[in-house]
């Protein structure tokens, strides 16, 4: 059963009479973005090109939903931020151009690279890719069972908000439960080794949901 049919089953409406197809797609797509962005179980890449003299460069926000780090010739580059640049030197802008090694998130679609490029370079940006949209031509996604339930219940919660808010709350609670279960499932993959690793730190907790070896998810 595809996602659209599953949602329509819960709504007890096989064809669009009260809830049009467009409404069902909206509910599902909103739910997919929320669950996908929270759990981040996929990674993707995109090329990131910089050229001489341009130190604020847009990344492809149609390829990558949540950018996370850069590679250059498979070497990880340094994530940094504006405060650290200022801390290093108030005259950081005067550093001679070179191959950028530090990347600062400048706004939601641009990075500031440092030092300013002395030539054209191509980096690989890694991050969470966009999920596929649900529409008339694509009514399903490949998902594991917990993620699928989290998305379906959340979509139904969105759709029932206007007319049956208490039932919407119930479905939202169920969605949160399934989302949590999916997170636990991610954490316990390769679980035997996680006990030997050092405890996680603040930034690991902040990005909870990423697949990695680390603390046991609670």
């Amino acid at each position, binding site marked *: 059963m595809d996602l659209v049919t599953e949602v329509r089953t819960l709504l007890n409406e096989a064809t669009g009479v009260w809830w*049009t197809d*467009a*409404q069902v797609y*909206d509910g599902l*797509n*909103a739910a*997919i*973005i*929320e669950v996908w*962005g*929270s759990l*981040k179980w996929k990674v993707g890449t995109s090329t990131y090109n910089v050229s001489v003299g341009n130190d*604020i460069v847009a990344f492809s*926000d*149609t*390829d990558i*939903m*949540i*950018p*996370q*780090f850069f590679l250059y010739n498979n070497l990880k580059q340094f*994530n*940094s*931020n*504006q*405060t*650290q640049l*200022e*801390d290093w030197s*108030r*005259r*950081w*802008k*005067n550093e001679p151009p070179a191959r950028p090694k530090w*990347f600062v*998130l*400048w*706004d*939601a*679609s*641009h990075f500031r690279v440092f030092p300013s490029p002395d030539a054209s370079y191509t980096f690989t940006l890694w991050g*969470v890719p*966009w*999920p*596929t*949209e649900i*529409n008339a031509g694509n009514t399903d996604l490949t998902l594991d069972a917990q993620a699928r339930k989290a998305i379906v219940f959340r979509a139904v919660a969105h759709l029932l*908000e*206007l007319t049956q*808010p208490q039932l919407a709350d119930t479905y939202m609670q169920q969605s949160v439960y399934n989302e949590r279960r999916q997170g636990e499932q991610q954490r316990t993959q390769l679980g035997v080794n996680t006990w030997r690793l050092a405890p996680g730190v*603040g*930034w690991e907790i*902040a*990005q909870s949901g*990423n697949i990695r070896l680390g603390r046991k998810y609670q």
Partner: protein
Amino acid sequence: MALSDKWSLSTLRTAARRELGDPNGLFWPDAELNLYINDWQNELQSTFEFVWGTTTTTATATITLLAVAPTMLRVDAIYFKHGTSTSVNRIVPRSKTDLDAIKRAWRQDIAQDTPLVVYQDDQDTVSFWPAPTASGTLFLEYPTQLTLTSSTDTMGIPAWTRYSCKDYVGFRAFSRFGATQNQLKAARYKTKFDRQVKLFQKFYDNYMPENAAMLRPGGKFAADILNPRSIFLK
């Protein structure tokens, strides 16, 4: 269409109408929904500052911010390049109270080639200390104000926020006095939107996550950098 598409005002309005069950605009006219949609975008932009801009202008002792950059939400960093130099420096932001503490007679200082401090006289103007003497260039960086005017204008904030527009518009539409007012629904949509905002914080924190802690303003480390102790001991 893809989930990465930034919706136009028209598409946002259509999605909001689907949520309100008013596809033909019988209860809420376009102009009203356009207002709510713009408020939605402004709300998220002012909360997260998703979109930034830059402007270059000639250095003078005082500049009027909105004359230099009409879409500026607030000024953030200002860099200065002297006319005959290639050196570019960040001008340190300080309050007038700081300047009074650093040097009581700071207002009497004569102009010099490179200003050291930028301070804000009021919401619209910033000034430099000491005032710059010769020609110089200022580079300003700032979060911008966003406006959706025509139906084809697209949202500036990330595409992953687009469905929260329906919740914000639902909150505002059901709040408005009139036959369609429904305080319960308005309150629920407001709560739902607030939940989305918390989720967006999580999404944005995960951009370049190794620096998530440093991106939070007001931390002791950040404060120490902005207000180095040596300045106050002079």
